[in-house]
């Protein structure tokens, strides 16, 4: 019984061990890593990534992928800036951005769930389309001259920072609960693991896929807003490389890229591990040029171990 639970979560465990090792190592080399300011920066910087990775976890569990999240993120960031500049009440930005993101996600969901276009193609098309549409619309200009209460929602830096981190954690906890406790959560795992078997059980795979992508978009909208309020201007190239960061965090956290398996706790660990690497290298006095190489190595190790573990777990007794 105990061994069953251990073996179910061994991937999350492996990521956690790697993360602890990183924390111990950097602590030994550079204790200043553990200064309050640095830890707070890490949390605030990674909170938007965590929100996107939360949605991405569910997309990957249902055996799809979304590489358009970075472009959606950029569109949402600019929309947030323009709305604020046009005088929209700041609290209203939250539902507005969730709706804008959800609309873009729903378009993905329609292409993938209803028309059955492979998600890698559909979201690749949207990745290019949104990014270039934005470039054309803004001519590359940043949104400047934002109202004062845009930054940190007018709450001031300290409270604003905690709000962002708390929102990311609350969303993660809520969806972790939902994946386990709601019918839709079960359905997600079932469809991701064996789509046809799930259909035979009366589940509706297309509706579920549509829903997951819509949710993904809504989370991207929220993440973009929470990210945008950290600065006094909104760049038109926000979210570059976000899709890779999110997917990598999910995979490193033990979610199977082949669907049907994964947890949000794992995603939390994966996001933390990849999000900390760069800063840890800087503190350890290593050239930060190594950050990407290091992250690549972590992803490779995670994928190779998935293959190895996959062999073990698929072997029938």
């Amino acid at each position, binding site marked *: 019984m105990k061994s*069953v639970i251990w073996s179910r979560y061994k991937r999350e465990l492996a990521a956690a061990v790697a993360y602890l090792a990183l924390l111990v190592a950097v602590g030994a080399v550079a204790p200043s890593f553990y200064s309050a300011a640095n830890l707070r920066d890490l949390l605030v910087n990674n909170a938007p990534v965590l929100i996107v990775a939360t949605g991405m976890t569910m997309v990957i569990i249902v055996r799809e992928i979304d590489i358009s999240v970075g472009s959606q993120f950029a569109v949402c960031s600019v929309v947030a800036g323009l709305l604020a500049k046009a005088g929209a009440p700041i609290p209203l930005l939250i539902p507005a951005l969730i709706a804008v993101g959800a609309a873009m996600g729903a378009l993905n969901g329609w292409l993938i769930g209803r028309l059955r276009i492979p998600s890698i193609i559909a979201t690749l098309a949207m990745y290019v389309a949104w990014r270039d549409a934005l470039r054309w619309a803004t001519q590359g200009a940043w949104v400047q001259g934002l109202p004062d209460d845009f930054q940190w929602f007018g709450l001031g830096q300290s409270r604003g920072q905690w709000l962002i981190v708390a929102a990311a954690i609350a969303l993660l906890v809520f969806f972790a*609960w939902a994946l*386990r406790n709601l019918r839709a959560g*079960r359905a997600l795992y079932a469809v991701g693991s064996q789509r046809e078997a799930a259909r*035979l059980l009366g589940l509706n795979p297309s509706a579920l896929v549509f829903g997951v992508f819509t949710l993904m978009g809504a989370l991207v909208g929220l993440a973009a807003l929470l990210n945008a309020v950290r600065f006094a201007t909104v760049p038109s190239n926000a979210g570059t490389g976000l899709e890779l960061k999110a997917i990598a965090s999910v995979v490193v956290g033990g979610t199977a890229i082949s669907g049907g398996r994964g947890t949000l706790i794992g995603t939390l660990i994966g996001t933390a591990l990849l999000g900390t690497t760069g800063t840890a290298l800087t503190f350890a006095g290593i050239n930060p040029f190594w950050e990407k190489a290091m992250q690549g190595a972590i992803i490779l190790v995670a994928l190779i171990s998935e293959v190895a573990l996959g062999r073990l777990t698929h072997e029938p007794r």
Partner: protein
Amino acid sequence: MKPLLQVRAIDKSYAGVQALRDAHLELFAGEVHALVGENGAGKSTLIKIITGAVEPDGGEIWLNGQRVAEISPRRAKELGIAAIYQQPALFPELSVAENIALGLESGGLLARVNWRARRQQAAALLARVGARILPDREAGALTMAEQQLVEIARAIGARSRILIMDEPTAALSEEETRHLFRVIGELRDAGVAVIYISHRLEELSAIADRVTVLRDGRTIGTYRMEELDRQQLIRLMVGRELSAVFPWRARKLGEPVLELCDFGSSTAGIENINLTVHAGEIVGLAGLVGAGRTELARAIFGLVPADRGELRLRGVPVRIGDPTQAIACGIAYLPEDRQRHGVIPEMAISANITLASLDALASPWGMDFRRERAIAAHYVQRLGIKTPSIYAPVQTLSGGNQQKVALGRWLATEPQVIILDEPTQGVDVGTKAEIHRLMIELAAQGAAILMISSEMPELLGMSDRIAVMREGTIVAQLAREEATQERVLALALGQ
């Protein structure tokens, strides 16, 4: 004359189920040799062993008086063995010429393709089988018959000495069949040995020189075609002792639960189905592979649209558009392909069992995990699922135990109609007996059970009544007392 191919004492079992035991086959150059047997008699397995697709557990294969040590698909091709299956295995996106060339060209992956020679060769081969097909056409756009001819052309081009044809006429019209027979006749005259598998017994006397009968994985014998009439052939195919003991006992039948009146589905190719299953009754659905049994089950369950006739549940006409509605109506369907359609492999046993009845777990706080544990533990115990924990992923279980999990999930929905599609296929003997016992128990509690089975003893031993399907419709229904192996098979074959 020395035989071209000798298959000696072949044994093969899949996960504890014996598919072939001590099977023999002797094939001469220049003969058409028919291979017959019921569903599951071992024909496909024997063919797969000859073509190197599966490895036998024991036995020997001799070609031209020499023992062939190890046979792989590649080796079989080198030895001149080619097989043509019921579903043509062409690459639909490639042209006819490319399809033919793929089987012929030698050299490494870097060898240059000679397109002109390719096209000429393809055209010549197609002409030889009398097919008027342009080599540049896309293979996917051809009719079934044309695709079959392309496969034959490819086999001839590869200078095959042994040509295996599995139900080649199933999709052909009469005219196309005649043409195919002419081609086969020419091949025979040219010294090719043809292994011909077909359920159409009338064809065999027209085309085959000799026939080998398989039954339960054993070779019963090889006969000259003119020695046997159809009745004798059927007797050889089924003539086993019904020795297995089934837990069947007489039960009192209740009201009609499932009634099909002129029921049919044009997409699934079934029509005019009239069938009633009563409470407490087990109705066996017999028929050859492709007769429409699984299609009927899928139409009842709403997986394919039923557009003809009526389906009544306890006298009330219902329309079932999708599985959700079917489940809501109290219908359960245990599909044939357990691996792909039955269980969710990555999920825990407990979650698999409750997946079709999640409503029962609803509580204000989300899912009631204590109740889930209780339900799962109940069915694990009732079905005797052997596992260290109800939280183990289903993929770690044996095939028989996976089937029990799939069954347990449907029992948890407390269905009134249970459709079982080959419920004991590929499970071990012990599990099989347990599933049979459970079926009787469920029927005794009032469930209406429709069982599809290709295993004659199981059909005869478990059913209160047997409905025989052929070519998409029910051709006869036999009461338990009137059903014999010969009658069922003769009806399924249309004799």
